[in-house]
């Protein structure tokens, strides 16, 4: 029995560390399960970790290193800036790469070897539009976003979507990564007084924003994509998270989906904390690598790419994919998703959104 | 008679309430060795700093060979041939003695660009070594100037002021800490310069033997004013000066 190497290249230190470590830990669980299940093509899987320090240049070097050291697939990175660089290397070496990044541009470069583990912003955000038009019947909205490539991507898609839906964006509030003081942001929104605010930030930023919003008693509903209702955000923001709404691709709170419940339980037992969205993404990425490699029948990058495009995996046949999932010819993914709201300090699924 | 080498007109300088220099004027002519003495804090060093552009005077003008240099920067003034030393030791501590002295001369040779492409010592090693050996520092040529003894640094300082071959030199306490034998050599050297090149000197000094035997004329400053002026023997006999400065 041989071993097959999986290169996990992620943001284990630097600003991306929270996302990166969750991604890693999700993958760790997946690899453990895969090995218990006989590995990939009867080969044991060895996971090698590479820390990019959240630095794109380092990430590029590390993807190169992982491939030099014999990795047959790459898992990572999460920050779009890094992925944009290192996906070139994987492409040059015809190595399949599952990424956690959500920036639209990743799948627009015609790279056949890069695949998402969650929908990009250009799929996730439009899924929300219906909520603004039908449920809220909003005419004027605001957007508060973190000014990095992640936030900017989401914000651009949102503004575009609103225009299409005929909704006016009357407050467009950018904030810095790792910002701590949201007083100005919130007071600007308060002054503009839109009917709802789309909040697109990373975890702690979301929490700090929510806290300030509560302090200044911001009256309108706050709606986010993925992060805003994550367990971590609720833990950090406490009562201030109450009522926040988000569209979530796949959420650990959707425990009635059997695979998700199992994963969440196992994760909590192993790491003593709740899995985040990033953990699930890593988990799904690792399992997909197994499924697709076995579908192809050998570790071959070209064939893998061939197989991936237009592939749909049903949760019934491939339980660890968690939800029925498809990848299009660009590597973009689609699957059903949820609307979640924080009620009594816990996220509750308030609706499902079909795959788009 | 030609224009004085240095003409100081009505210089005033105060520091937040303290009037250090209160309207001082004097002329120095070519070939003179002028002594500037006065009690501690009478404004001598401040006057030097105003003359040489290290401090901006509140009022007054300075002329060097007839040219108004009041607003001129110290480096340009130096290029006009005005050299100086500071009262406080001011060698470049982490450079060798040789480098210290070459530096003092290099800016007077060639242009900025020619210095970049020319020889690394600007052709000054020999001249610098002569000065070094004159001040009995040959064995310290490649030592960092900061690890010299007080008196030795004082000598390097003086050598630096002389290196560029200036026509007017202002020395602030050149004798302090220098061994008497070496001081006699220094005096000899200043006199030789003065005689051979007509170099003009203005010297602040508290060592009366040195001042009285070196200078051709002396100005006494007290509380920012000139209180006396004259030949050394006149000053030595002047009762005001004795009371204010020399002591009984």
């Amino acid at each position, binding site marked *: 029995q041989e071993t097959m190497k999986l290169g996990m290249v992620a943001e284990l230190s630097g600003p991306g560390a929270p996302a990166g470590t969750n991604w890693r830990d999700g993958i760790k669980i997946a690899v453990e399960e895969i090995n218990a299940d006989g590995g990939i093509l009867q080969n044991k899987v060895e996971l090698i970790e590479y820390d990019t320090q959240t630095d794109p240049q380092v990430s590029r*070097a590390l993807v190169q290193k992982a491939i030099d*050291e014999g990795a047959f697939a790459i898992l990572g990175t999460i920050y779009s800036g890094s992925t944009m*660089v290192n996906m070139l290397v994987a492409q040059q070496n015809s190595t399949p790469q599952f990424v956690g990044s959500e920036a639209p541009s990743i799948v627009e470069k015609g790279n056949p070897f890069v695949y998402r583990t969650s929908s990009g912003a250009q799929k996730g955000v439009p899924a929300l539009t219906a909520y603004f038009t039908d449920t809220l019947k909003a005419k004027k909205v605001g957007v508060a976003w973190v*000014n990095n*490539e992640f936030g900017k991507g989401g914000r651009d898609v949102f503004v575009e979507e609103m225009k299409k839906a005929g909704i006016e964006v009357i407050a467009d509030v950018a904030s810095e990564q790792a910002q701590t003081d949201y007083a100005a942001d919130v007071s600007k929104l308060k002054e503009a007084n839109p009917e709802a605010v789309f909040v697109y930030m990373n975890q702690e930023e979301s929490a700090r924003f929510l806290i300030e919003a509560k302090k200044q008693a911001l009256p309108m509903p706050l709606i986010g994509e993925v992060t805003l209702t994550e367990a971590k955000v609720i833990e950090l923001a406490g009562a201030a998270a109450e009522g926040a709404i988000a569209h979530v691709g796949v959420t650990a709170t959707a425990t009635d989906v059997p695979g998700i419940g199992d994963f969440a339980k196992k994760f909590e037992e192993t790491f003593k904390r709740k899995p985040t969205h990033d953990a699930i993404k890593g988990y799904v990425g690792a399992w997909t690598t197994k499924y697709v490699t076995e579908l192809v029948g050998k570790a071959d990058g070209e064939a893998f790419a061939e197989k991936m495009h237009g592939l749909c995996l049903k949760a019934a046949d491939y339980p660890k994919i968690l939800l029925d999932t498809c990848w299009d010819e660009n590597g973009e993914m689609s699957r059903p998703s949820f609307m979640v709201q924080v009620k009594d300090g816990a996220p509750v699924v308030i609706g499902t959104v079909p795959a788009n | 008679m030609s224009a004085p080498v240095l003409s100081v007109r009505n210089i005033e300088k105060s520091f937040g309430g303290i009037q250090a220099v209160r309207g001082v004027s004097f002329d120095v002519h070519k070939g003179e060795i002028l002594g500037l003495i006065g009690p501690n804090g009478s404004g001598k060093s401040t006057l030097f700093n105003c003359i040489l552009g290290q401090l901006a005077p509140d009022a007054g003008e300075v002329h060097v060979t007839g040219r108004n240099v009041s607003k001129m920067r110290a480096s340009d003034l130096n290029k006009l041939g005005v050299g100086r030393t500071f009262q406080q030791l001011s060698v470049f501590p982490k450079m060798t003695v040789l480098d210290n002295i070459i530096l*003092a001369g290099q*800016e*007077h040779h060639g242009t900025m660009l020619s*210095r970049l492409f020319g020889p*690394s010592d600007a052709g000054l090693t020999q001249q610098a070594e002569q000065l070094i050996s004159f001040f009995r520092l040959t064995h310290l040529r490649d030592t960092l100037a900061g690890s010299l003894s007080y008196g030795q640094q004082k000598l390097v300082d003086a050598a630096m002021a002389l290196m560029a071959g200036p026509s007017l030199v202002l020395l602030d306490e050149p004798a302090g800490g220098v061994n008497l034998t070496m001081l006699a050599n220094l005096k000899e050297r200043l006199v030789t310069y003065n005689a051979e090149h007509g170099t003009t000197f203005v010297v602040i000094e508290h060592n009366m033997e040195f001042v009285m035997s070196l200078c051709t004329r002396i100005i006494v400053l007290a509380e920012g004013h000139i209180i006396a002026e004259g030949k050394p023997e006149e000053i030595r006999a002047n009762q005001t000066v004795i009371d204010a400065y020399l002591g009984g």
Partner: protein
Amino acid sequence: MKRWLRPLLLVLLLALAIIAPLGQGNYIVYTLTSWLIFSIAAMGLNLTLGYAGQISLAQASFMAIGAYTTALLTLAGWHWVLAMPLGLILCFAVGLLLGYPALRVKGHFLAFVTLAFNTLVFLILRNEEWLTGGSYGLVGMPRPDFGLFSTMKQLPFYYFTLGITVIASLVMWGIVRSPWGRAFKALRENPVRAESLGVDTRRITLLAFAIGSVYGGLAGALITPLVQFIEPGSFGVGHSLRILLMVVVGGAGYFFGPFLGAGVVIMLPEMLRFTAGYYLIIYSALVIVMLVFVPSGLIGIGGRLREKFRPRREVRADMREGARLQ
């Protein structure tokens, strides 16, 4: 050091640099290349900080200017050889500009001004999307092709960078051993005295910044084809601090300090990677330990060791001349 030892050592080092990447994986070659590039950037800062004593926390922003200029021009179809000099000229001009505050403020105030400048450059790169691609960065810059010699592959690109590093070092060597070098040091040690000796401290200060910046720009111009992707985040204040770290760890004010420093800052984490999550902890601890034991930088380590194992006593130099009073 004996007279023949130094050239011999240099030839040896160069030979080492030539054979080092042979037979290594792409990753090692890539890392060696970034070592050379950061050595260039650190060499520039070493001039500004180590020789001329002007604190600058903005070296990364000059890398950015060099990198973006080269990137935009090569993307527009220019050859690197034409794009790079333009970047350097721009860096020289901006470096002069940044030097102006240094004429007025010193020490930590200067540190602040340069730091603010770095932040400003970062924000412009991020916000002016029409030009710089904003936070998405620029991607797909070609590596220079010289007809017979194409640098597309990792190894040729390494030799290309090595060549440029050698040229840059020779030029730097020329500068620091010329009278300019002496004037830079004089500025560091005692600007008032230097001014009184005819050193035009204004001009020398500005030059210290401008030349140092050009080296930053050159490093940036090389990063562009190396990584083939640039984004504002790679040129933030943190990266300036990292270059500062290289200079001090190597030995500020010593010619070879930057090479050592860049080596440690870039290679050491690579070597420690086997320790998984702990490598940054170990790395930072090692840096601290090193500074405690050789505060003058790694370059001083040889002397320290010699001192330790072969302690020598020297008699005072004037003993030879003999006493005059017996």
